[in-house]
């Protein structure tokens, strides 16, 4: 597992059905057992926020909500809270992300928007390949919440819309579909087809799909 290079592994060992082991790094474990900044029941009414984002992962049905308190003058994230419905990696990823945006007096929105799943993963000391998609959820929730802030403050131009682009009209495959498939481990066009339960693509579409697979593969795995 490339994500765990140079790591001394002393961690929870959870196995998949096919017997490969999932090793969680100490940092993942630490955050999972002591999650930072999640929204406690007694804070619900008290916590002052000015942006919120909710995202779901189609991969395994997980969901996340993020609340941000942004200083309008400095555009720094002063505080945040989250809630996540998901596995150990999802909880640890969210916790680590919440720490990243708050530390050193708070991250500027423009910098926060540059956080990638890879950054989250690095901080976590790596995630098993199968769990990479869990860290994407945090990244997406952050983007959604910041977009919400832009909308609230009428800065519509700054809203980042990563709208789905249809890549294959016949099979109705979008770039998002391909991204999800890659995150779930698809490496070839056949893998993607199997994931999406669709037939064989036309030659023109095939090339575009293959290119996107390479793109996302590089984005997340190298």
């Amino acid at each position, binding site marked *: 597992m490339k994500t765990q290079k140079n790591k001394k592994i002393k961690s929870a060992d959870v196995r998949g059905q096919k017997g490969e082991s999932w090793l969680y790094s100490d940092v993942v474990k630490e955050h999972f*057992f002591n999650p930072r900044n999640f929204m406690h029941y007694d804070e619900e009414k008290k916590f002052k926020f000015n942006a919120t984002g909710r995202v779901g992962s189609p991969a395994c*049905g997980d969901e996340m909500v993020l609340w941000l308190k942004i200083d309008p003058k400095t555009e720094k994230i002063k505080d945040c809270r989250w809630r996540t419905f998901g596995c150990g990696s999802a909880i640890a990823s969210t916790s680590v992300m919440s720490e990243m945006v708050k530390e050193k007096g708070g991250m500027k929105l423009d910098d926060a928007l540059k956080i990638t799943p890879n950054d989250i993963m690095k901080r976590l000391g790596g995630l098993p390949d199968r769990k990479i998609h869990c860290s994407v959820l945090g990244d997406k929730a952050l983007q959604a919440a910041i977009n919400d802030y832009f909308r609230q403050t009428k800065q519509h131009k700054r809203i980042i819309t990563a709208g789905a682009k249809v890549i294959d009209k016949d099979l109705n495959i979008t770039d998002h579909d391909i991204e999800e498939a890659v995150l779930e481990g698809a490496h070839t066009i056949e893998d993607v087809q199997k994931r999406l339960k669709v037939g064989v693509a036309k030659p023109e579409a095939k090339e575009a799909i293959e290119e996107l697979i390479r793109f996302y593969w590089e984005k997340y795995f190298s």
Partner: protein
Amino acid sequence: MLPKPKKIKKIYLDHAATTPVDERVFSAMKPYFMKEFGNPSALYNLGRTAQTAVTEARKKIAGLLHALPENIIFTGSGSESDNLAILGVVKAHQHKGKHIVSLGIEHHAVLRPLEDLAKNGFAVTYVPVGKDGLVDVEAVVKAIRPETILVTIMYANNEMGAIQPIAEIGREILKYRKAHNTIYPFWHSDACQASEYLDLDVEKLHVDLMTLNGSKMYGPKGVGMLYLRRGVSIKPLILGGGQEKSRRAGTENVPAIVGLAKALELAQKDKAKESARLRELTAYFWKKIQEKIPDVRLNGPAIGESRLPNNLNVTFMNIEGEAMLLYLDEYGIMCSTGSACTSESLEPSHVLRAMGMPFEMAHGSLRFTFGHSNTRADIDYILKYLPAVVAQLREMSPMQSQKH
């Protein structure tokens, strides 16, 4: 935050995954590793001792199943037995028909070969099960066609403990054959989860083929068997020497076979008592869970005759199973989940899905399977921590119930 235990107790509640080897089984096996290590096919004394051990084991098992020794084929696992049953029947009888009847909640050792056959010209009917995981006998019979060569249905389900009406289905198949004047379909049942608690008399169950294995009944891993009724022909999957009457080649795993026989003997002897004991434990556990934790559901049949006495499968709404599992592991509690997050394919348990359960509910399912070592004290220990684990994960979850 979560309570810290003074002392962590190791509590194993995953007996449906595998069981430890029973002391008595282990002692029965021991001589055959180093001292009596001969190859049963050899003619000298050492080989004959091994041969005798295998023969005795075969006789013992045959007796327990109400079968004849030559009906017992030793294999390397429950999975191999399932494969041999399905593919062995197919290889020998496919010229008579290419249709098989089964259930969507079967073990993968049944489903994978069936999927493979479906790609190669076979039709497979998966008779739907109800919300409680039980199949209707009539629906099975209705699924039989003139070209059906095999019906394969598990005796008891590993995930949610549903016990299928195997004997009734067997009787109906007999009737069907008689009415249609045919020897088809053959009738196979995977009984791996049943051996500890249920009656395995093949005459009462009317099965033609039945799978058992060692690792679910306090016997060794790496050994299984297939009961094959006289007159039913199958083709072997493993070719080589003439072992097992040329139905499964390979030097007999003598210690494991001896262990399998011993384990089955012990299991069948104690089944009534152990079933009653475990049913009481699971009923107690379920009652306490309901008392202490809101928004929980029992998955599978109600606790009683149609449910394995050692199985409790519960959904804790709005939270995810892997997270629960990892927290519980910190307290020494070992169980399993049907959540998508723990599966290779990121899809939730096929069993829970086949019962019509929505994704989110499968997500929050935990399976506790009890066994010999478990006591009421274990449950009381778990109940000290489980409610806190659930509460903490629920507080972290964006899917909130009305009341908290």
